[in-house]
């Protein structure tokens, strides 16, 4: 399992291929989040981010047959078309890989301590959390154990 919170860009192809080597892997599902139209500054909570991501991945591992997993999330200054986040999940079959990948992204959106400040033409503004993100995370069954 690889979890990285970093300023630098990453090679999504390489990160994905690194998961192929795991014995028994038959499927790798991955998601890459990209900066849309407006540059941004991404802030995070350094002491907490890594453990929050780890917990989300552990939760996914408890629900699906996940053989290996890579999560990379960037912070700092990002320009349009830059990569923000990578979630790649290796499993024996596609069902587990797809589901775990989507679950990790949905939980990351509502549980991992990152905040985006967009540099819009009319000034910088913090991005507001969207109810649809809570809905997306909420459609998964609640965790077996209490998150807190």
């Amino acid at each position, binding site marked *: 399992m690889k979890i990285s919170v970093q300023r630098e860009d990453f090679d999504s192809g390489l990160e994905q291929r690194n998961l192929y080597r795991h014995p028994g892997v038959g499927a790798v599902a991955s998601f890459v*989040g990209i900066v849309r139209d407006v540059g941004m500054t991404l*802030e995070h*909570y350094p002491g907490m981010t890594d453990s929050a991501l780890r917990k989300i991945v552990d939760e996914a591992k408890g629900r699906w047959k996940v053989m290996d997993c890579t999560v990379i999330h960037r912070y700092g200054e990002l320009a349009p078309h830059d990569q923000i986040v990578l979630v790649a999940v290796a499993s024996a079959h596609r069902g587990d890989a797809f589901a775990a990948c989507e679950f990790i992204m949905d939980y*990351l*959106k509502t549980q*991992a301590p*990152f*905040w985006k400040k967009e540099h819009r033409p009319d000034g910088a503004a913090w*991005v507001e959390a969207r109810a649809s993100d809570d809905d997306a995370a909420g459609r998964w069954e609640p965790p077996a154990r209490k998150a*807190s």
Partner: protein
Amino acid sequence: MKVKVLFFASLREQLGTASEEIELPAGVGTVAALRGHLARRGGAWEGALAEKKNVRAALNQDMVKPAAAIRAGDEIAFFPPVTGG
């Protein structure tokens, strides 16, 4: 008791501070009570931490509910709903 309080993103900007060590009066024993205690400073504090504001909290780097109990030496963070990914 003494605790460390952190603020992130828009909250950090509104309050003009990222962190502080604070000595809590007796009776401030939960995350919600700490938030109320800070809001009573008035001004920007009241504006940013008022009950109607959507503020999340973490206790020792773990997301918690307002009722979570705090102890001496704890690190409590307040921040707006997260927007990563």
